[in-house]
């Protein structure tokens, strides 16, 4: 299965980025082949709708599972439409988060946080 983790750095030892739409990197791990891929988040520079852009990017990579901190309402709508399962990886390192997911230890996120939560409620417009 293909798992995407929002990451603060470029390797699996980095911490999970709490933010989805404006995270620094996506680390995509194929748990079957063990292959890893690091992508820069294309949504981070958006003036608005960062979560929507980020969601499209990872869906385009064929991701089935997402591990992050919080997801906003618009991004959640896109992820739901694409059938991506979202799990909370707050406080973990990227590699550990993937192992925890495989072990069934992560909490699934179904609800969205308010818009711009990752910007600490600042205006993103």
């Amino acid at each position: 299965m293909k798992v995407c983790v929002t990451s603060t750095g470029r390797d699996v030892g980095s911490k999970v980025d709490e933010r989805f739409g404006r995270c620094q990197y996506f680390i995509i791990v194929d748990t079957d082949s063990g292959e890893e891929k690091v992508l820069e988040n294309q949504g981070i520079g958006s003036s608005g709708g960062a979560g929507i852009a980020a969601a499209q990017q990872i869906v385009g990579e064929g991701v089935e599972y997402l591990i992050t901190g919080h997801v906003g309402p618009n991004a959640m709508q896109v992820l739901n439409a694409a059938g991506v399962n979202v799990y909370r990886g707050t406080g973990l390192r990227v590699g550990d988060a993937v192992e925890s997911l495989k072990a069934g230890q992560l909490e699934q996120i179904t609800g969205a946080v308010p818009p711009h939560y990752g910007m600490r409620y600042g205006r993103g417009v």
Partner: protein
Amino acid sequence: MKISVLSGKGGTGKTTVAVNLAALLDGCRYIDCDVEEPNGFIFLKPRIERSVEVEVMVPRIEGEKCSACGKCAQFCYFNAIAHVKGRVILFPELCHGCEGCVLVCPQKAIQKDKRVIGKIEAGYRDNIECIRGVLNIGEPVGVPIIQELARFVGDEKISILDCPPGSSCSVVNSIEDSGFALLVTEPTLFGLHDLKIAVQLVEKLNIPCGVVINRSGVQDIIVEEYWRERGIPVLGKIPFSRDAARIYSRGEMLVDKGRFRRYFEEILDNLKGVLSYEAGSSY
């Protein structure tokens, strides 16, 4: 002639200056462009005769025509359209109404719908024409309303534009094509900081400007040096006064109170002087 009243910093007295000058200018037009909090009518109390809704374009995707090619989503700079797994999802509140998606759709599957974002109200206080834009609560972008307000400006009489605070899109759209920018400041470091940004903006747009110092007093020294250095004329001062604050807080006009009227008469005299100088120097 369009005269814009702006400040950079909020709460310096734009509306106070704009409505009181409008009251002294016989037969002028007052336009409240601060569409997020249009409060000039609290003071002018016009009888509202007309109210028109302001609409923006929002795309509507006709499902049966859409081939889910994703060209619209690729084009949209504001991420108002998402394309995933053969589905197109619309986020109307992010749309800026550019109509680009309509143009790029090869199936002609995107129709132009309208969405109301606010209204424009117009009426009179005696012979002062009063117009204001009102943005609906929760709407993120007021610029389309400000652009509609700009259409009311005409050459047949003076228009006083009460601008929003700040110096971003809504202010740029309000002050474009102004004959003069009246900058209202207060003698504080905050006031000076934001005013310098406002000055840069009006200079970039080639609009001549002058300044009014509100809540004037011993602290004026904080801002005065800047005017002198930049050669920006001071058109008047309104004293820091508990009485003025009391009149303002009741929603009354300072020009209706004998003691304060003269400060606005002085601003107006100086403004006329600067404007005739500007008119002369353009020949």
